[in-house]
C-alpha cells in the first residue's frame, strides 16, 4: 500500500491488518508522521506533533502485537487529541496564550483510557481558543484550514480534529462539544462526529468551557470507527461528578442491523424553517438523505418541539455565564492574553443576571421534557447538522456563529446523544452533514441509523483534494 492509502485506512481496516500482522504500527505511525510533515504546514491542524513519543509507542505496540498481546481494536492506531485534553508532561494550551506554557501533571481520563487501549498519540490538535467560537487570528495559535477548500474554516471549535481526520493526518480524534464543536467540524469537514450523552464520557482533565453543557466524543472517518473509539472511552469515572454509572453496551453490536420499522422524527418547523439564514442547498441535500433513510425502511415523521425556538437564547446564556466563572480571574488580571473574540464573549458572560441564567436553565428543562415526550413517539430525530456550509475565513467575526441558528446546541441543552454523518456536498463543493439524535444513553440506535445511511450513501469514498 502507498503511504496515502495507509493514512486513508479506517480504524477497523487498520486494526484488522495490525492484528493479523499484515501491517506494523511502526510503518503506520511513520506514514502519518510523514504525511503531517508534508501537509500540515498548509492545513495547520496540529499545535504539537510528538514524533519521538509516537514512534516509541508504535515500537511498543509492534512488540505487543507480535507477542499476541492485543489490547483491542485501537491497539497500534494513530490518533490525535484536541488540545483541550490534558496529556501528562505534554503542553495542553486550549489554543490560548493564557495556557501557552501549561503542562499537565496528569492525563485526562479519556487520554488515559485511549492509551490503555493501545492507541498511539500523534500530537495535539489546533482548536478555537478555549473551545469557544472563532477562528481568531489574534489568539496566537495556528488556525486550521478546511481540506475541502482551504479558504474556508473546517468548523469549530474542534477545528484541527475535523481537518486532521478528513485529510488523513490521524485515524481518529477526540473533540469536545458545548454547542456543536464536534458535530460542526464533522459536518464542515465531511467526517463523522459523535457527541455522546452527557455523562457518558468523562470530562475530567478536559479544560472546561461550560460545565453543564460540555460533552466529549470521537471524530472519525466512519461511524464504526466512532463506535470503536467511544467503546474505549465511555464509562463511569469517579473523578467526574457528572459521570454516569449507566452500563456501557457494545456499541458495534447493532451496527449493520436493519433500520426497517424505525421511526425518524424531523422537527421541520425549526430545522427547515423559511429563514434566510438557513442555506437552501443544505436543506435540499439533507432532504435527499432523509429519502435514503426512507428507502432503507425507516418511517419519516414530522414532529414539533416548540421550545427549540428558544435554544438560541438559552444556550449562550448558560455557556457564557459558566465560562465567565471559570475565566474570571484571568479576564481581570491578564485580559490581553485572550484573543479578541473569546475575550469579548467571555466578558459578555459576566454581564448576564442570575435570573437570566436561572430562566435559561428552566427553559432547558422544558426542552428536555418536550424532547423526551417526542422520543416516546419516534426512535431518533434527524436534521441538518449545520444551518449553512462552512463559511470562508473572510466571513468570520465574533458574532458570525451567534447570528446563525444553531442546529446542534439543542442537544447540548438536553444532553442527548447526537451524531453528524456526511450526507453530500453543496453545488460549490462544501460538505453537508446529517444529524441524528436519540434518547439519553441510546448511542446504539443513533449509531445504527447513522451507519445504515453511511453504508448506503458511501460518502466516505470521497477524500478531500489535497
Amino acid at each position, binding site marked *: 500500500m502507498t503511504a496515502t492509502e495507509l493514512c486513508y485506512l479506517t480504524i477497523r481496516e487498520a486494526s484488522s491488518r495490525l492484528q493479523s500482522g499484515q501491517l506494523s504500527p511502526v510503518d503506520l505511525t511513520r506514514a502519518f508522521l510523514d504525511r503531517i510533515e508534508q501537509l500540515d504546514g498548509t492545513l495547520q491542524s496540529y499545535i504539537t506533533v510528538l514524533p519521538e513519543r509516537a514512534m516509541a509507542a508504535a515500537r511498543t505496540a509492534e512488540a505487543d502485537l507480535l507477542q499476541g498481546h492485543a489490547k483491542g481494536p485501537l491497539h497500534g492506531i494513530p490518533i490525535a487529541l484536541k488540545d483541550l485534553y490534558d496529556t501528562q508532561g505534554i503542553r495542553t494550551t486550549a489554543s490560548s496564550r493564557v495556557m501557552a506554557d501549561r503542562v499537565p501533571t496528569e492525563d485526562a481520563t479519556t487520554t488515559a483510557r485511549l492509551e490503555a487501549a493501545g492507541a498511539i498519540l500523534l500530537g495535539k490538535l489546533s482548536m478555537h481558543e478555549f473551545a469557544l467560537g472563532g477562528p481568531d487570528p489574534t489568539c496566537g495559535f495556528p488556525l486550521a484550514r478546511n481540506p475541502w477548500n482551504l479558504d474556508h474554516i473546517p468548523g469549530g471549535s474542534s477545528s484541527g480534529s475535523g481537518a486532521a481526520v478528513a485529510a488523513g493526518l490521524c485515524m481518529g480524534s477526540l473533540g469536545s462539544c458545548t454547542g456543536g464543536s464536534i458535530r460542526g467540524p464533522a459536518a464542515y469537514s465531511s467526517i463523522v462526529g459523535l457527541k455522546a450523552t452527557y455523562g457518558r464520557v468523562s470530562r475530567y482533565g478536559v479544560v472546561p468551557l461550560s460545565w453543564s453543557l460540555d460533552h466529549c466524543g470521537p471524530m472519525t472517518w466512519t461511524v464504526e470507527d466512532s463506535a470503536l473509539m467511544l467503546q474505549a472511552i465511555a464509562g463511569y469515572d469517579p473523578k467526574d461528578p457528572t459521570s454516569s454509572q449507566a452500563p456501557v453496551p457494545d456499541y458495534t453490536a447493532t451496527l449493520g442491523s436493519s433500520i426497517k420499522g424505525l421511526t425518524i422524527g424531523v422537527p421541520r418547523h425549526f430545522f427547515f424553517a423559511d429563514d434566510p439564514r438557513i442555506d437552501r442547498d443544505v436543506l435540499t441535500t439533507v432532504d435527499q438523505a432523509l429519502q435514503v433513510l426512507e428507502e432503507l425502511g425507516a418511517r419519516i415523521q414530522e414532529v414539533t418541539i416548540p421550545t427549540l425556538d428558544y435554544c438560541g437564547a438559552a444556550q449562550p446564556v448558560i455557556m457564557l455565564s459558566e465560562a465567565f466563572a471559570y475565566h474570571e480571574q484571568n479576564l481581570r488580571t491578564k485580559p490581553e492574553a485572550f484573543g479578541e473574540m473569546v475575550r469579548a464573549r467571555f*466578558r459578555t458572560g*459576566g454581564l448576564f443576571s442570575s435570573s*437570566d441564567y436561572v430562566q435559561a436553565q428552566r427553559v432547558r428543562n422544558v426542552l428536555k421534557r418536550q424532547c423526551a415526550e417526542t422520543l416516546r413517539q419516534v426512535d431518533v430525530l434527524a436534521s441538518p447538522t449545520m444551518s449553512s456550509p462552512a463559511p470562508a475565513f473572510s466571513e468570520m467575526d465574533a458574532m458570525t456563529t451567534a*447570528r446563525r441558528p444553531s442546529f446542534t446546541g439543542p442537544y447540548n441543552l438536553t444532553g442527548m446523544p447526537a451524531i453528524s454523518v456526511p450526507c453530500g456536498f453543496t453545488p460549490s463543493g462544501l460538505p453537508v452533514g446529517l444529524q441524528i439524535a436519540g434518547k439519553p444513553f441510546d448511542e446504539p440506535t443513533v449509531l445504527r441509523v447513522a451507519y445504515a445511511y453511511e453504508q448506503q450513501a458511501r460518502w466516505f469514498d470521497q477524500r478531500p483534494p489535497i
Partner: protein
Amino acid sequence: MTTPDAISLEQFQILTERAGLNLTPDEVTALKPMYDFHAAQIRSLHEIPLDAEDLAVSFSPTWDPQA
C-alpha cells in the same frame, strides 16, 4: 445596532463595572453590541410563562469522589 429596548452606554458601563471588568471607554463601546444582541434574545426567555418549572441542573448530594 441597538434596539429600542437596549440599555444606554452609561448603564452598560455600570454593568461592566459591577462585573469587575475594568474596561476602557473604547472597550465598553466595543463590547456593547455583543451584549445588546444577547440581551434582545434574553428578553424572549423572560417572556415565556414557565409557572413552577424546575431548573434543568439540580444539586445531587450523592457524588462520592472516592467511589
